[in-house]
């Protein structure tokens, strides 16, 4: 019984972190590119807004998410009125919380990687006939691969470890929304030390391996940016 609830938490955590990371990669790279590129009105404000979850206590981030997506929330209220469904206390809420909390890591790392691509390579691509979008896919993204991969791994690790905002938004419902960090909290509160030990060890090993893999294999295969 104990093992099966642990397996459930493990699977749920992987599921939540994977879904969150999928959105993080796409949206994070797009936002990173926008922030890395031209100046536009509100750029500073956007930068501050998406970096905030990195420094705010996760409970504060979670609180904002409730205000936005709760059953009576600004967005959540409309969804509930329309469909009778609310994201609160579902695993989607855990994914949303992980997404918001881990997104800044992706934006920061991908932005730095995108900015480090030599401007002349981009100009060369333009003068050879390629549009901005074509240049992004064929020159800028391949040359930022290392940073984007590092950002992906960091975001995934952060997402799988997300606790505070997740607790606020999806609760800690056994067999429904208790991801690993929440299950560890419950186990420790209930004095189930052997269960807690096992999960803590597992999570540490898993996150450590992720970071190692990112460092070991994240390197670019050929040459430097400036040949």
């Amino acid at each position, binding site marked *: 019984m104990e093992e099966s609830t642990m397996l459930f938490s493990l699977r749920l955590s992987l599921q939540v972190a994977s879904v969150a990371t999928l959105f993080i990669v796409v949206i994070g790279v797009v936002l990173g590119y926008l922030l890395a590129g031209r100046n536009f009105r509100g750029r500073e404000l956007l930068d501050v807004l998406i970096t905030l979850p990195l420094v705010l206590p996760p409970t504060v981030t979670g609180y904002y998410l409730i205000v936005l997506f709760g059953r009576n929330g600004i967005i959540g209220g409309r969804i509930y009125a329309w469909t009778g469904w609310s994201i609160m206390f579902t695993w989607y809420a855990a994914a949303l919380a992980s997404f918001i909390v881990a997104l800044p890591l992706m934006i920061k790392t991908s932005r730095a990687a995108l900015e480090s691509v030599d401007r002349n390579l981009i100009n060369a691509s333009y003068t*050879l006939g390629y549009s901005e979008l074509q240049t992004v896919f064929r020159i800028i993204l391949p040359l930022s691969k290392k940073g984007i991969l590092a950002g992906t791994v960091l975001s995934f690790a952060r997402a799988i470890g997300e606790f505070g905002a997740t607790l606020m938004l999806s609760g800690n419902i056994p067999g429904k929304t208790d991801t690993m960090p929440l299950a560890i909290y419950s186990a420790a509160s209930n004095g189930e030390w052997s269960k807690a030990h096992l999960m803590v060890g597992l999570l540490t090993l898993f996150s450590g391996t992720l970071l190692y893999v990112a460092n070991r294999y994240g390197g670019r295969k050929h040459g430097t940016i400036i040949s």
Partner: protein
Amino acid sequence: MAQLSLKLFKGVNGFTLDIAWEMENELVVLFGFSGAGKSMTLNFLAGLARAERGFIRLGNSILFDSSRDIFVPPQKRAIGYVFQDLALFPHMTVRQNISYGAFGLHGDERKERVDEMMDMLHLQRFGEKYPSEISGGQKQRVALARVLVRKPEMLLLDEPFTALDISLRLEMQKLLIELRTKFSIPVILVTHDLYEAYTMADRIIVYSEGNIAQEGTPYDIFHTPVSPDVKALVDNKIILNERIFSQSIRQKINA
């Protein structure tokens, strides 16, 4: 009507570029000290930057005209631009770099054209190597092949030979002269190397602080500089041996 004619004005942070000149299908060297506006002119021609006022006409097309609000983006200009640092794509092989330049060509046609350029520039042996694995001279040839593969309407070279040692430089200069006969297009070479200017140019345009100080044949410029500025540029001790030296280059080129 000249093949290329341009008139450009731009003021940035106390520097003012204010130039107008024309050229045929010939090799023009833009000559002058750093910061005179030579590379800036190339960027305007390529469409990577936009002048405040003026126009650029290449053949029958207007690439830029401030009075009519015309600005053709770099993608639509068909201008081959070899950057000072060459800007080879480090994640692509030599063949992939050249093939990237064959924009708009597909399938066999693309492959044939790439092969043709690789033959012409003696690059077949290096096709599968990455830019970081080949020598400086080979990189130069890849950069040239990449811009020539699309048959550009004009060629811009921003000090492309600066990083090379003298014998390799002579070899590249010879190659460029060969290519000029194959591609009859305007070629603009930016340099502040006296020998290069003297030996390569059909005509030299001397830039000084954003203006044109003098233009003419290499002989005119070097023998009758019109201002102290131009004199300072060409009046170099080494120029005393200029005839002997240029003779030896011409011999090498003709050899």
